[in-house]
């Protein structure tokens, strides 16, 4: 413990060296804007900025890249909330409630909540990282294919309640997502599947961001245009210091879901297979399941913004762990950080912690500092971002449209994905009109491929025996939790009915027991 504190103090001092501090501030600011641009996620940001890092020493360089990464995680929420376009895959869950809040004129509240939740998520995870990095690295090793599959089942279970009361429509939505997730090449044999119209674009599968941007960006824009006729100015700017303080104080309304999301996000982030996107979706699902008012989720609940934002920041810290100790990047962005490390002669692996403590603790120290600076910079910029919403929707809609096209084109750079994105936009609009929940479809397309791969790997290694999922302690725990989560809404409904029945007869006032 003492050695940890001494190392950490050394790391913090290192982070406060003028050059490193400058890199942190610069990195956070750049990252914030990179993350806020749809399609220009942190992957591209970090890749483009890699050359800058050759001008400074390795530790300063990796600190800079980590700061960009961190800033981008914060920034992803900005376009999700103000424009309804997920800036990055990690910020998709933020759209679910962020957009309705912005439409109700509460964009400043949502942005503040996102920033503060990100800060809490970042802080909790970096503390966990400091204290438990080596044991958690061992824990991550225990995660084989059966555990990964059980985790995916758990993730699906957290979403069962997402579609509101209409379970058949939720299941339909999940199935659409799963079918889309199956498009492309078979994971094990490499044979093409579901290549519609023999279009070669489908061989690469359906990119998850294409679906998310289509459904949320285009679909919501069409919906807003139809319902308002374009005569709406979304947000009347009334930013004041008092209002700002009130927004900060409202943190107590979402602190529970934020803390839960932070811890969950960190753990999911440390698993090489998962990453920040599933973490944020799971955190959203959990926040809703355990909310006293689950029906308000998706209609503008502040906790629905805070929970995923806390989780995606926590997961981004978490994914540094498999990168450092196993050499396996937990996300595309950490893959680029990994590239940087290899060039500087730092070989990730179980020995990096002991052989290069200066580097590892410098990185950890900088995560603390970067987190603090990013929240300050972010809060300072909120009035600027909110101003975008003062534009009339007739001006905003074309801007959203253009950003969606760019965001659909950027990941794979093919027109195929742009057309697909527009198609999903129309589909999203129709689903919205017919009152189908779209979030479960988005979840399914993210988790589908992960679940399929781990299921098939597990069954291969057990010679087709499904008991493998309950014979191993970690996966059995996940499966049991998933079963409990799936039954929880039923239990609530049953209790409500029983209470109602008890209330009618008036005999047992405290029947819930």
């Amino acid at each position, binding site marked *: 413990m003492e050695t940890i504190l001494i190392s950490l103090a050394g790391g913090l001092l290192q982070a406060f060296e003028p050059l490193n501090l400058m890199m942190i501030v610069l990195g956070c600011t750049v990252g914030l804007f990179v993350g806020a641009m749809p399609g220009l996620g942190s992957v591209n940001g970090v890749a483009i900025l890699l050359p800058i890092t050759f001008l400074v020493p390795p530790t300063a360089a990796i600190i800079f890249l980590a700061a960009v990464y961190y800033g981008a995680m914060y920034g992803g929420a900005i376009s999700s909330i103000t424009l309804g376009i997920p800036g990055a895959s990690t910020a998709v869950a933020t759209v679910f409630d962020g957009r309705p809040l912005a439409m109700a004129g509460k964009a400043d509240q949502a942005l503040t909540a996102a920033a503060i939740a990100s800060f809490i998520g970042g802080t909790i995870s970096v503390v966990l990282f400091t204290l438990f990095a080596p044991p958690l690295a061992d824990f991550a*090793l225990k995660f084989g294919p059966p555990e990964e599959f059980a985790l995916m089942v758990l993730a699906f279970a957290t979403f069962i309640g997402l579609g509101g009361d209409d379970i058949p429509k939720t299941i339909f939505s999940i199935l659409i997502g799963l079918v889309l997730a199956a498009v492309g090449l*078979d994971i094990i044999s490499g044979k093409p599947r579901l290549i519609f119209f023999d279009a070669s674009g489908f061989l690469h599968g359906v990119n998850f961001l294409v679906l998310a941007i289509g459904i949320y960006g285009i679909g919501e824009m069409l919906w807003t245009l139809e319902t308002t006729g374009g005569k709406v100015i979304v947000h009347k700017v009334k930013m004041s210091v008092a209002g700002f303080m009130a927004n900060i104080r409202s943190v107590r309304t979402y602190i529970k879901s934020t803390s839960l999301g932070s811890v969950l996000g960190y753990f999911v982030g440390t698993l090489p297979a998962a990453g920040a996107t599933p973490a944020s979706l799971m955190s959203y699902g959990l926040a809703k399941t355990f909310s006293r008012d689950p029906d308000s989720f998706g209609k503008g609940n502040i906790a629905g913004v805070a929970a995923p934002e806390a989780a995606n920041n926590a997961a981004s810290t978490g994914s540094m762990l498999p990168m450092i100790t196993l050499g396996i990047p937990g996300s595309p962005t950490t893959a680029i950080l990994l590239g940087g490390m290899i060039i500087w002669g730092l070989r990730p692996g179980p020995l990096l912690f002991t052989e290069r403590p200066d580097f590892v603790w410098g990185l950890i120290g900088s995560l603390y500092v970067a987190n603090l600076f990013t929240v300050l910079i972010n809060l300072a910029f909120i009035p600027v971002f909110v101003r975008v919403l003062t534009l009339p929707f007739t001006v905003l809609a074309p801007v959203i449209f253009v950003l969606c096209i760019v965001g659909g084109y950027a990941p794979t750079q093919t027109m195929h994905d742009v057309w697909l994105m527009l198609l999903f936009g129309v589909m999203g609009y129709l689903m919205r009109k017919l009152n189908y929940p779209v979030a479960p479809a988005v979840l399914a397309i993210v988790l589908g491929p992960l679940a399929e791969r781990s299921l098939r790997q597990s069954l291969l290694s057990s010679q087709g025996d499904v008991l493998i999922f309950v014979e191993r302690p970690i996966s059995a725990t996940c499966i049991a939790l998933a079963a409990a989560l799936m039954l929880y809404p039923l239990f609530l409904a049953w209790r409500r009915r029983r209470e109602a029945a008890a209330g009618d007869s008036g005999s047992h006032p405290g029947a819930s027991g």
Partner: protein
Amino acid sequence: MPTLRKFLVGTAFALGALSVSLVGPAHADWKPRKPVEFIIMAGTGGGADQIARLLQGLIEKKDLSPRPFIPINKPGGSGAEALLYLKDKAGDDHTVLVTLNSFYTTPIIQTDLGVDISTFTPIGRMALDTFLLWVHADNTEITDLDSYVAAVKAAGTEWKVGGTGSGQEDSILTAMMESEFGYEVTYIPFPGGGTVAKNLIGKHIDSTVNNPAEQNEFYRAGQSKPLVQFTPERMAAYPDIPTAQELGHDIVYFMQRSINGPPGMSAEARAWYIDLFKTLFDSEEWQTFCVEDGLTCDEWVAGDDLAAFHAEQGMRHRELIESVGAEAITGE
């Protein structure tokens, strides 16, 4: 509407900056005019991935290209995804591929893929990568090849070998061992050699045939151990580990790491890439990396010579696959 004007001016600036960065001056000498897609036909953390990321970094560090190289992993279907992607990019001068041997085997095994690698544009061979047989260090009963073979025979198909996909080089090597020693194992594919290595250390699989780069750090940490190397001679990095040939089993297998462009890449672009990768090949950093990671980087093979090398290797793999049977590799 001052806000709108500000916003529009800002957007115009941003677009202006973007177009400046996209449209470079048109010289007679070809140079990349936009970021180059550096396609990796395997997942993150594997040997090909590490090489691509190192090369990308060296290109930036030495300022060898006016536009950055962006590594993109396309691991699907044992590299089929990457091969199809490159095929679709015919005539494109801003995409290059880092290969594994699945460059040869995937089109042979997946006949309906419709990819003919001889149409691709060979650029340069960066290295020959090597393979060793690895087990977890806790496995005290297995100390050498004989005890390994005995253990596998005792376990039968319950013995799990991890690899990067049916048709990838590790699956071929696994099939070669199956036919040499007369046992049968269960082969489980993972996305990338790094994940395979991690699953061995986590004891989710029983053995692997990883490249040195993928296991080295775990080996140094005492978590895994090599039993035999599949090279003609012992590598400098593993002086105490016998080769399969020394033990009387004729299993030698290499993997080429080469850079290739899509079909129909322009001659000027090809010349520029050959120059670029030759510079990288000769660099001190690359040669150091080769020694540390057990890669063989003695000979630079480029352009038409590489095409000839590909043709010969393609033949050899066709024979190998026929001798062990495609079913042994795909597990069907």
